[in-house]
């Protein structure tokens, strides 16, 4: 293998690059998916959800779970259940002085909610706090909804300028923003329109999002009016102060879900204290999701019991589909690798025609000649493969520690439900799978060159110049 060092190094390098490209891409995509699923399960979707059979299709306030206390007890006593949260869910309208939009108003018990979800941890700094049982008639609102309803304003002042300097925004750009000092903008659209007009396209692309985020001003205890139908299908509603804003890498969720205290919502809708629309269950180990789901289904034959894969099939599909995607992607890379090795080994056989003729002449049998070519090919592949995986592992570990920041694409990514900071990650078993696939590729690639070697006539081969 080392008689032509340059060629061997070129082949090994190409394998390293190919393997790195494949493994790192998989780690990147996997990181995105894992984060999405983790975020969804931590903040948006329960492991298991129990509701009235008609609730999801009708969204009717009347579709409550009967015998709530008994249901609660049964769930508590089911193996594998870690925590339960009960919710009241009403579809309604959220209004401010300037805008209105459709929302889902979710009544929660904050202490129970904390055991099932981590939304309390997603409060945006300086916007307030999560719900507490003592504070009534307050709403916990998503950032995207706050922007939609013009609850978030935009303002450039000295504090903002200082913050931008700390973010190492160039002075040239900051200079262009000075003219906006003291001015307030009702919403993001207006703000961007004015600011982008002063900046170049490159400056807007590079710094626009940082400037917007830093300039955001939340109106503390801003008022939100929500209207919906009560238990008797009469129009009702209430005024809520904003308790705080939350931010998730899922703009759609932020726009739709408003959280209030169960007590407050029941008071407005006429629902009894024990009447709930959803029981959300957190389980101890997601490996047993199906088992616990089945257990609960058997306990509640008259209710709908769904696990997260059924509630959010898009998430489940993403997880399932992406594995197949990885396999296809790696197969393409390995196919390219195979052709590279095939070409190299054919060159090797051609260059060593005389030597191969001699080896056959002095008594090396066909099996040995075949094995020799094959082993060289596998060795070449594995050296490149192992180095490639090593480089990938180092790159993945570094990226995971720091995160890859795609702030410039934050809006688009969050619109799709993905975080703009990606932490590449890959299951260790993929390295084993890659190693095996590389060895197999090396083996398969060597078949034709080995066959060519076997077909050589020793007498003629020896006479080759």
């Amino acid at each position, binding site marked *: 293998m080392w008689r032509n060092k340059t060629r061997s190094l070129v082949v090994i390098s190409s394998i390293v690059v190919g393997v790195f490209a494949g493994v790192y891409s998989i780690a990147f995509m996997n990181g995105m998916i894992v984060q999405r699923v983790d975020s969804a399960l931590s903040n948006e979707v329960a492991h298991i959800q129990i509701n009235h059979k008609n609730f999801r299709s009708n969204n009717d306030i009347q579709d409550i779970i009967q015998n709530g206390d008994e249901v609660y007890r049964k769930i508590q006593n089911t193996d594998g259940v870690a925590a339960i949260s009960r919710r009241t869910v009403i579809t309604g309208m959220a209004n401010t002085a300037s805008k209105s939009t459709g929302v889902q108003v979710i009544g929660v018990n904050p202490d129970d909610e904390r055991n099932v979800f981590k939304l309390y941890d997603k409060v945006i700094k300086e916007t307030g706090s999560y719900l507490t049982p003592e504070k009534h008639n307050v709403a916990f609102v998503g950032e995207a909804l706050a922007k939609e309803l013009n609850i978030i304003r935009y303002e450039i002042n000295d504090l903002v300028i200082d913050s931008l300097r700390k973010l190492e925004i160039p002075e040239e750009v900051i200079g262009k923003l000075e003219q906006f000092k003291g001015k307030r903008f009702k919403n993001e659209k207006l703000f961007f329109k004015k600011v982008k007009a002063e900046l170049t396209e490159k400056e807007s692309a590079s710094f626009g999002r940082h400037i917007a985020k830093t300039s955001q001003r939340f109106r503390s205890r801003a008022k939100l009016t929500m209207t919906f139908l009560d238990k008797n299908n009469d129009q009702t509603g209430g005024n809520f102060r904003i308790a705080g804003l939350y931010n998730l890498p899922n703009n759609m969720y932020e726009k739709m879900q408003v959280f209030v205290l169960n007590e407050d919502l029941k008071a407005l809708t006429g629902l009894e204290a024990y009447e709930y629309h959803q029981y959300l269950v957190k389980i101890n180990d997601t490996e047993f999701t199906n088992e616990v789901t089945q257990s609960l289904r058997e306990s509640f034959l008259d209710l709908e019991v769904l696990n997260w894969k059924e509630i959010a099939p898009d998430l489940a599909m993403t997880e399932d589909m992406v594995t197949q995607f990885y396999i296809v992607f790696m197969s393409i890379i390995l196919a390219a690798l195979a052709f590279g090795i095939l070409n190299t080994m054919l060159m090797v056989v051609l260059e060593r025609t005389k030597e191969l003729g001699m080896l056959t002449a*002095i008594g090396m049998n066909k099996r040995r000649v075949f094995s020799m070519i094959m082993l060289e090919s596998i060795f070449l592949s594995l050296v490149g493969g192992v180095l490639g995986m090593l480089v990938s592992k180092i790159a993945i570990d570094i990226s995971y520690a720091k995160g890859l920041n795609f702030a410039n694409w934050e809006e688009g990514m969050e619109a799709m439900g993905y975080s703009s900071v990606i932490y590449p990650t890959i299951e260790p078993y993929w390295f084993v799978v890659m190693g095996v696939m590389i060895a197999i590729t090396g083996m398969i690639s060597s078949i034709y060159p080995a066959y060519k070697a076997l077909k050589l006539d020793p007498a003629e081969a*020896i006479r080759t110049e």
Partner: protein
Amino acid sequence: MKVLEIKDVHKIYNSTEISVHAVNGVNLNFEAGEFAAIVGPSGSGKTTLLNMIGGLDKPTEGEIIINNTNLANLKSKELIDFRMRNIGFVFQAYNLIPVLTAKENVEFIMNLQKWAKSDRDNRTYELLKAVGLDDRANNRPSQLSGGQQQRVAVARALASKPMFVLADEPTANLDSKSTEKLLDIMEGLNRKENITFIFSTHDQRVVNKARRVITLEDGKIVEDNVK
């Protein structure tokens, strides 16, 4: 003891236009310990005859019997194995494996035959000493002169104690001093190990050293002199 019998061997190469009768009815016998040279002009059939003796080519007619084994009766795999155990080769262009040391080249065949390490080491050093290269055992071919490489090739050919050694123009790429030295070594080994040496050569120095000279012309033996 007869080690090689060549019985009425012909080799005809057929192409679409011309038939070439490279070897035309050759009959020869070789005893153990012979030191023979096959001479003749280019195209006389020397190399073709040597290739058939070595099992690298098949006669169109006739038989080649080595130590009572008819090569024609051997299957491809058996022939390769037979060659490994019974025939040594020395080539014009040395044909050493460039990435192996002199020692590793010599013990290559013994490795193929799965000799025990101690036996392998002993035989290797014995042969390297016999060819005067025991101090160059760890050198690669690129670190040896042409003559030294050919001596290593001779040691390799003798490693597994074959019936006979076929040497096709072994001195063609060597200067006169190296040729003399090589021939002396080969003759010494021939006498010591009683292994038959059969040369195909144009080199008069080889002819002079040989104890039997067989002259081929147009694929036929025209002379067979034992000195």
